[in-house]
Each structure stands twice: as structure tokens, then as C-alpha cells.
């Protein structure tokens, strides 16, 4: 017998962080929900504007709330499933404080407009490096714990944790590869179509391996604990695990239907997404069936109530996901609020409710109080939370459908029925109000939980008891329990091997060999990724070049960086799909070859405002400036934030030099511009400012940021209609 104690202090820490960041993330969500309903409440403050706060909301919800949530679960359950303390208490603390430091730096940089603009991968390179380092610390600590475990079989929850750790590391590193231009600015090494593919390979699998697999591990541990009975079918859980890992990794391109992504890649994404129905529902059934014969407990126990609703939402959103990946459905749903509703049924319904259930189960145990301070409050949280989700989700589904149908509506004369985009925006207002209310209810309910947990914490004993556990160590040498008797008469080497293969001894072996298991998961993930990614990068015909498409001028590049920093991509797409109503509304559809200099791509994923890919030349400079200064001067019903500061702040002309240099390094043919970017930018700014004055516009904007932004907007999507440059101009900036 060996004796040891579990480290519950680390679980307490992560749980406190989960609740704190949950409240913060939801609060920012509620703020931006109100901003869409009442744009004026941002008070024209840069750091409160929608484009900067939305990434803060998504990052806080995913990495701070859900992340700390499943870390709590992992630290608590891994020790118990392995019957050992964590490998290193020090590493546990480094992981905890490091992760919180990363969250704080995200909370500081994103509102300042320091961003890479890749959704859920917005953090700039110094923070990315910190994320990778802390993740390695976590991985070492986790694998170390597996190695020193006292339980031979690795329980299925641990498999899900392994898949999380390995895959997130691969995804995060490859999607974030970039070259720094300064301490706070870098450029993705991928451009256009390839960047889009990488980003959604990452984006979709972040959902899979950050918001799904660790939470399934949580389900497989905490649900049986709370229900007091083992999981319904352990066999089903094994099938659930492998099919999920194999299939999920392929599904990413369904985010890019009807875009400039090659057809075969998006079809592949669709087929694998539809196949995901299988494992997802297998998992849901396994979860719900665990409660067979225990449904009377559900009525009495709020923890189980949270879990049941969470698993139901898991089933619903993983039913909806494949549905949305079918191309025809996607042509209606993409860029609309439908996606937002889908995501929130997943995050609020599945992730948040799993976390809440876990918190209510853990709190009395971690604080050793035996019960929550108020079970009534827990009950209220459950009902208020559920109502909050329903208000949110139902209203935003309605908004998404309305939006999608209005965009594609034609009248009797064959013209767009709602040619003015803002009509489709103002129609959504009632839904936006209901959403804001629903979000607020959910936030208040979460605050009730925070209050309840604090009150329970105050009831804790003076010193925590730390029971000493005794379990025997694993025998050094493992003897397999006798496998099936051999049916072979003679002992041929090959025959023996074949027999071992068909008896699937190998899988039983992996189940107790953490390193081997991890390697196989990695291979499963890599096969899916590489077969999808390599062709996109290596097949030239996927991205036909267009001779007239030239690099951005230094000033336009600076303008593009402002577009990125202000988070315009959170409301605007730059991707006209080859659908009739889109070409009618926006013009010529977008071609892959038009994005070859877009480091990173700016296709966006939703249209709170209209697509901007063909906006170049659509309006005068003067219109653009006045619209940016205050959109409601031009369009009373616009919900776009005002950007008065862009008319005030000076553009850093000298700083453009290092950016152009990095672009050149990435292979953009900048020619002379590399050595005199600032002067070229000044010259173009002077021209634009003169044209602006000629249009009767402002007279004092020559050195301001707005000029760069206007230069960029006026360039957008115009190259395709220009003649190809003469041969000798090739290689130089236009």
C-alpha cells in the first residue's frame, strides 16, 4: 500500500478562476449585445467599440471560462482516475498562474486593438508564445501524472483529455505561425485561401477539442459521480472517442462553402461533418442513459438537472452543426445570426451548464461544507439560466432566418426586394432586444452562483481535512491476463501476429500505455489534417493567379492594419459568394486569386454590415470619411460604431517601413517600396487628401489614420477590373 493525498487546492484555484472569468466574459457579451441594440452606448470610446470587444468576449468565454472550467475538471478527476497526486505541484501552480496571466494580457491587448484578426486566435505573437509554453507545462504535468498512476486502465475520460492536449497544441501552433513586424504586430505566414483554410481548420477544431472533448471527459467522470452509477456503456464510450477524434478533424472547411476555397475541400468538410452525427449522438445517448433508473434523482438534484440540460444541448447543437454544413442550408445560414444562435446553444447550453453542474457538485466537496449555502438559489440559477438560453437562442434563430431570407428575396420585377442593406439590419432590432435581455438573465443567474459559492466558501472549516489515500502501486511488470487461447496448431510467426491483430490485443494495450496512446491520437489527428491541408498548399491550380492583382501600396497596407485593429471583420465579410442574390447586391463574385496578398485573410464570418469586397470606388472619399466619423449621419438606422478617433489620431508613417519589409519577406513583390515605404505612403496620403478637399470634404486629414483606411477601402476588390500591368512593371509596387 502506498499513501498519498490528492491536491484539491489546485482544483479550488481553477474553480474560482472559472467563476470569475465566466462572469467577466458574459458581462462583455451582454455589453456588445446591447451595443447592437443601441449603438450609442459605446459612447464612441475606442476600447468599447464592438469590433474590439467582440474578440474579448469570445476569447474570454472560450479560453478563460471554458478553459479554466475544464482545467478544474482535469485536475480534480485525473488525480482520482489515476489514484495519485499530480506529477508536480509546482507545474500545477505555474500552469494556473501562467494561464491567468495570459487571460489578463488578452483582456488588456484586445480592447487596445492589438490583434491578429483570426477568430479565436486573435492574440498577438508574444502572448501566443506564452500560451504554447504554459500548454507544454500542462502537458508535462498531465502525462507525468498518467505515468505514475496506480490504476492500470486509463479511464475513457483521460483519453478525451489526452486528445485535447495533443490536438490543441498542434492547431494552435500551426494556425498562429507568423512573422513579427513589432512587439505588438505580426503577419500570418499564410495568405488568402490558404490562410482561410488554416484558420477554419483551427477554428472548427477549437470547438471540437477545446469545447467538446474535454467536456466529454468531464461528462464521463462527473455524471457517473453525481448519479451514483457507472456510465451506461463503456464500450459505446470507446467508439464515441475514436469516431469523434477521427472525424472531427476533417470538418473545418464547412465554414467556407461557396467561398473561393476549392470545391473538393469544402465537399470533404461537408461529408465528414455529416458523419459527425454518429459519434455525437452516441455520446449523448450514453450520457442520458447513464441516468436510467435514476430519473427520480434528477428531479431532486440540481447538479443532475444541469447535466441533463447540458447533454441535451450537446445533442441538439451537434445535430444542428452537421445540418449547417450541408451546402444548401449553409448558403442560407452562413454570415447570418443563425450561426451565432448555434454557437450559443453550444456554449451556454452545453459548456456553461456542464461547468455549472460541476461547480455545484464540487463546491461542497472542495470546501468541505457538505452542502451548498443555499439549494434554493441553485434551483433559481437553473431555471433562470435555462430561460436565459431560450430567450437568447430563439430570438437569434429568428433573427438569422429573417436576415438570410431578406438578403435573398427578389420582388415581382426580378430586383432585390431589400436593396438597402440597412433595411435588413433594422428589421432585426426586436430580436436584438430580446437577446440582450436573455443574455442579461443568464449573467444574473451566473452571479447568483458566484454569490452562492462565496457564501459556501465562507462556511468552510478552519483548515481543510486532507484525507490520506492508500492504494497499491502498480506492479513494475505487467502480465496480461490470459488472452483467448490460440487456435493455431503450429506456431508460425506471421500467423501469431495476424491472430494478435484480429484479437485486437493492441487496443487493450494502448489503453494502459499513455505515451503510445498519445502517439496514436496524434497520428489520427495529423492524418486528417495533412490530407486536407497539403493539397491546398501544393496545388497551384487551386489558386489561379490573376495578372492584374497587385500588392497593396504601403498606405493601403497601413489602412488594412487599421481595419484589422478595429475589428471590422467582426461585422463585415470580404467574400462575395457566387450566388445570384449576392452578385446582384455586391457585384462580381470573389476569386481565389484576388487574395494572394491578403496576410491574413479578411473574409470574415458574419455580416452585421454588408460585404465590403467590392466597396472600392463605390463611394467618394468624402462619403467614406463622413460615414466613418458617424455612420448615423448617413444612415440613421445603422448599428455600425462611429470611429471619430481615426480622424484625430496621427498615422505612424515611419512604422510602415517594418511592415512592408515583413511583407516582402513573406514573398510579396514589393520591389522599391521596401526601401522607401514611408515616402510612398506620404505621397499617396497627400493625393487622397487633395481629392478629398476637391470633393468638398475635410481639409486637415492628410496625416491622419482615416486617410490610410480610406485608401484601403477604395482599393478593395478593384484590381480585377483593371488591365494587367505591363511586363516591366511586374515586381514593383503599383
Amino acid at each position, binding site marked *: 500500500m502506498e499513501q498519498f493525498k490528492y491536491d484539491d487546492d489546485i482544483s479550488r484555484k481553477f474553480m474560482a478562476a472559472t467563476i470569475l472569468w465566466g462572469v467577466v466574459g458574459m458581462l462583455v457579451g451582454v455589453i456588445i449585445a446591447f451595443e447592437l441594440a443601441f449603438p450609442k452606448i459605446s459612447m464612441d470610446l475606442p476600447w468599447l467599440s464592438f469590433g474590439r470587444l467582440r474578440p474579448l468576449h469570445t476569447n474570454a468565454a472560450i479560453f478563460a471560462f471554458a478553459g479554466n472550467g475544464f482545467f478544474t475538471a482535469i485536475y480534480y478527476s485525473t488525480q482520482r482516475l489515476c489514484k495519485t497526486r499530480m506529477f508536480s505541484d509546482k507545474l500545477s501552480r505555474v500552469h494556473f498562474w501562467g494561464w491567468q496571466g495570459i487571460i489578463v494580457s488578452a483582456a488588456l491587448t484586445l480592447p487596445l486593438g492589438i490583434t491578429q484578426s483570426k477568430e479565436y486566435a486573435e492574440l498577438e505573437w508574444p502572448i501566443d508564445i506564452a500560451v504554447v509554453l504554459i500548454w507544454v507545462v500542462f502537458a508535462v504535468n498531465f502525462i507525468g501524472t498518467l505515468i505514475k498512476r496506480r490504476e492500470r486502465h486509463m479511464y475513457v*475520460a483521460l483519453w478525451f483529455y489526452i486528445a485535447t492536449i495533443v490536438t490543441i497544441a498542434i492547431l494552435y501552433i500551426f494556425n498562429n505561425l507568423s512573422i513579427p513586424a513589432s512587439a505588438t504586430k505580426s503577419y500570418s505566414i499564410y495568405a488568402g485561401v490558404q490562410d482561410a483554410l488554416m484558420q477554419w481548420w483551427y477554428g472548427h477544431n477549437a470547438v471540437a477539442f477545446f469545447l467538446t472533448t474535454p467536456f466529454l471527459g468531464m461528462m464521463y467522470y462527473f455524471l457517473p459521480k453525481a448519479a451514483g452509477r*457507472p456510465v451506461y456503456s*463503456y464500450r459505446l464510450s*470507446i*467508439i464515441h472517442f475514436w469516431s469523434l477524434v*477521427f472525424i472531427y478533424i476533417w470538418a473545418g472547411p464547412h465554414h467556407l462553402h461557396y467561398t473561393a476555397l476549392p470545391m473538393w475541400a469544402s465537399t*470533404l468538410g461537408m461529408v465528414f461533418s455529416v458523419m459527425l452525427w454518429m459519434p455525437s449522438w452516441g455520446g449523448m445517448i450514453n450520457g442520458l442513459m447513464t441516468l436510467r433508473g435514476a430519473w427520480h434523482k434528477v428531479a431532486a438534484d440540481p447538479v443532475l438537472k444541469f447535466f441533463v440540460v447540458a447533454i441535451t444541448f450537446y445533442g441538439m447543437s451537434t445535430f444542428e452543426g452537421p445540418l449547417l454544413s450541408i451546402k444548401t442550408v449553409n448558403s442560407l445560414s452562413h454570415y447570418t445570426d443563425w450561426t451565432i444562435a448555434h454557437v450559443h446553444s453550444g456554449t451556454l447550453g452545453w459548456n456553461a451548464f456542464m461547468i455549472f453542474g460541476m461547480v455545484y457538485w464540487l463546491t461542497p466537496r472542495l470546501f468541505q461544507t457538505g452542502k451548498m449555502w443555499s439549494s434554493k438559489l441553485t434551483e433559481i440559477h437553473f431555471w433562470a439560466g435555462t430561460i436565459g438560453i431560450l430567450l437568447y437562442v430563439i430570438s437569434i434563430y429568428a433573427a438569422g432566418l429573417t436576415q438570410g431570407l431578406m438578403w435573398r428575396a427578389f420582388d415581382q420585377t426580378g430586383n432585390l426586394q431589400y436593396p438597402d442593406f440597412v433595411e435588413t439590419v433594422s428589421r432585426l432590432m426586436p430580436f436584438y432586444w430580446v437577446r440582450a435581455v436573455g443574455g442579461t438573465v443568464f449573467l444574473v443567474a451566473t452571479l447568483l452562483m458566484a454569490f452562492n459559492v462565496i457564501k459556501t466558501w465562507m462556511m468552510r472549516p478552519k483548515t481543510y481535512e486532507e484525507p490520506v*489515500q492508500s492504494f497499491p502501486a502498480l506492479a513494475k511488470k505487467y502480465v496480461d491476463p490470459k488472452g483467448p487461447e490460440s487456435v493455431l496448431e503450429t506456431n508460425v510467426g506471421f500467423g501469431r501476429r495476424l491472430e494478435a491483430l484480429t484479437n485486437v490485443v493492441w487496443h487493450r494495450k494502448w489503453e494502459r500505455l499513455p505515451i503510445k496512446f498519445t502517439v496514436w491520437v496524434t497520428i489520427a489527428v495529423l492524418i486528417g489534417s495533412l490530407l486536407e491541408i497539403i493539397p491546398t498548399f501544393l496545388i497551384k*491550380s487551386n489558386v489561379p493567379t490573376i495578372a492584374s492583382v497587385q500588392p497593396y501600396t504601403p498606405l493601403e497596407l497601413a489602412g488594412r492594419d487599421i481595419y484589422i485593429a478595429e475589428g471590422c471583420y467582426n461585422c463585415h465579410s470580404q467574400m462575395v459568394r457566387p450566388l445570384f442574390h449576392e452578385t446582384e447586391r455586391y457585384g462580381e463574385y470573389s476569386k481565389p486569386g484576388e487574395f494572394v496578398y491578403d496576410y491574413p485573410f479578411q473574409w470574415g464570418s458574419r455580416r452585421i454590415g454588408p460585404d465590403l469586397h467590392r466597396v472600392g470606388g463605390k463611394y467618394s472619399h468624402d462619403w467614406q470619411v463622413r460615414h466613418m466619423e458617424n455612420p448615423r449621419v448617413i444612415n440613421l438606422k445603422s448599428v455600425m460604431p462611429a470611429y471619430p478617433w481615426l480622424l484625430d489620431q496621427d498615422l505612424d508613417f515611419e512604422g510602415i517601413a517594418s511592415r512592408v519589409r515583413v511583407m516582402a519577406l513573406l514573398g510579396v513583390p514589393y520591389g522599391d517600396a521596401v526601401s522607401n515605404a514611408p515616402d510612398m505612403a506620404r505621397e499617396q496620403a497627400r493625393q487622397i487628401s487633395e481629392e478629398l478637399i476637391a470633393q468638398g470634404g475635410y481639409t486637415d486629414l492628410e496625416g491622419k489614420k482615416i486617410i490610410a483606411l480610406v485608401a484601403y477601402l477604395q482599393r478593395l476588390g478593384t484590381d480585377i477590373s483593371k488591365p494587367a500591368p505591363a511586363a516591366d512593371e511586374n515586381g514593383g509596387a503599383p
Partner: protein
Amino acid sequence: MSLSDLIGNMDLAAYPKAAMVIFIGVFLLILYRVIFKMKKEEARDAAMIPMMDSVVTPNTQSASKETVA
């Protein structure tokens, strides 16, 4: 002939097809193991792991709060 020419000239549909074959093959093997080669007791024992994660040494402390009834 460069690598991209080589891959570019290959039939693109081969990638998803190869992937499907790999996936289905491995998946069938796992199904086979789980359905035919996993003993009832083995599955039951594994499923019980979370239920038996605390054995407190009698004379050191009072009973752990987390042993589930």
C-alpha cells in the same frame, strides 16, 4: 518536375477516398474489439473506476467527504 506539379497532377478525389478507407478500416477494427473482444467484466471494471477513487487510511483522518454512497 516539382512536388506541387506531382501532387497537382494527382486525382484530387483520391485524398478523401484514401482517408475514408483508412478511417473506416480502423474504425471497424475498434468496433470489432469493443463488441466481440471486450469481456463484460473488463468493461464493467473500467466503468467502475470513477466510483472507487478514494480509499482513506482508517487511522489518519475521518472519512472522506467524497465517497459516493
